[in-house]
């Protein structure tokens, strides 16, 4: 598939997939923290590699990334990214504590991995239900580091496939803005055709 000539119908289909998947993920997050969670309209970003580093704004900013590999009928990655303050606020809510700690400890990292796990699983469950494709998720892997270095991981994973990466990005926001996060679905380019096929959009 030539990503340079992708038409607006296909983009809409991908957006809708992102919408359904992340809608479920947002509900799961809201249930966990017992707060209202708002979700922006998903964006489909088709980027050249050189522009990937700035997808999250300043590439030097420290962020938390929780990364999953998606496999079976389609291949790809899912990544949940939070800025450090959001990550701390989220773990404070989960543990029902009120600290001004500005360091993530081992318990926090473990809790964040589990949140990522639940969000990603909700996301791909709904994708799987919608497309009839079988999808499997890896165990979570978590890393706190520069935004550009974290976001390069899913891009490099399929770097040998072409000159572009597709990010289906949804922003979440807890309604008092204590937590904002980005959920990325990064399908490998061949898989992307399979998704569209399964929905009868192309083929």
């Amino acid at each position, binding site marked *: 598939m030539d990503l340079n000539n992708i038409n607006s119908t296909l983009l809409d289909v991908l957006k809708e997939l992102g919408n359904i998947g992340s809608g479920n993920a947002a509900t799961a997050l809201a249930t966990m923290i017992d707060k209202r969670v708002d979700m922006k309209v998903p964006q489909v970003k088709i980027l050249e590699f050189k522009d990937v*580093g*700035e997808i999250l704004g300043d590439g*030097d900013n420290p962020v938390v990334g929780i990364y999953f590999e998606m496999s079976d009928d389609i291949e790809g990655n899912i990544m949940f990214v939070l800025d450090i303050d959001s990550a701390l606020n989220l773990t404070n809510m989960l543990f029902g504590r009120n600290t001004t700690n500005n360091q993530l400890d081992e318990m926090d990292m473990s809790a964040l991995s589990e949140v990522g796990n639940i969000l990603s699983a909700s996301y791909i469950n709904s994708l799987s239900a919608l497309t009839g494709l079988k999808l499997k998720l890896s165990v979570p*892997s978590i890393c706190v*580091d*520069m935004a550009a270095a974290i976001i*390069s991981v899913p891009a*490099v994973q399929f*770097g*040998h496939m072409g000159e572009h990466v597709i990010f289906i990005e949804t922003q979440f926001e807890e309604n008092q803005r204590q937590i904002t996060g980005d959920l990325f679905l990064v399908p490998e380019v061949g898989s992307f055709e399979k998704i569209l096929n399964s929905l009868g959009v192309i083929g």
Partner: protein
Amino acid sequence: MEIIKVGMADYKTIKSTGILTTLGLGSCVGIALYDRINKIAGLAHIMLPSSTEIKNNSNKAKFADTAVDELIKDMVLLGSSRKFLVAKLAGGSQMFSFNSNVDILRIGERNVIASKKKLLELDIPVIAEDTGGNYGRTIELNSKDGNLLIKTIGHGLKNI
């Protein structure tokens, strides 16, 4: 002073006084070349080790082997001479860890090995490196003296 950003799978050169910088190297490797006689600097941000293992290899800046060739070509056009070139390497880490030996996860290590192999073939000495580990690096190559500044989060600041 001019500051030029180098994106992923991209390379840039500079002759005037200035800095070439690339943000957040993870498994990617920054290959910094410097000609101290002519004060010409070049920086490539490579993603993958080898263009020969892959069919879709039109973007030369993506691979260690082809990016070095292109970078040198550009530096020679600016008036550099191959025999004055020295190299410094940074990056090649593994950001996320999994209990698996899949090759793609060792991509950082393979990128470093491939970059060194290519430089060795071209007789360009690697005079310093800061590679490996599990953290990201932002680097700045100064065209005045060839100094390579390496910034990290939680792993200090280094000049190599």
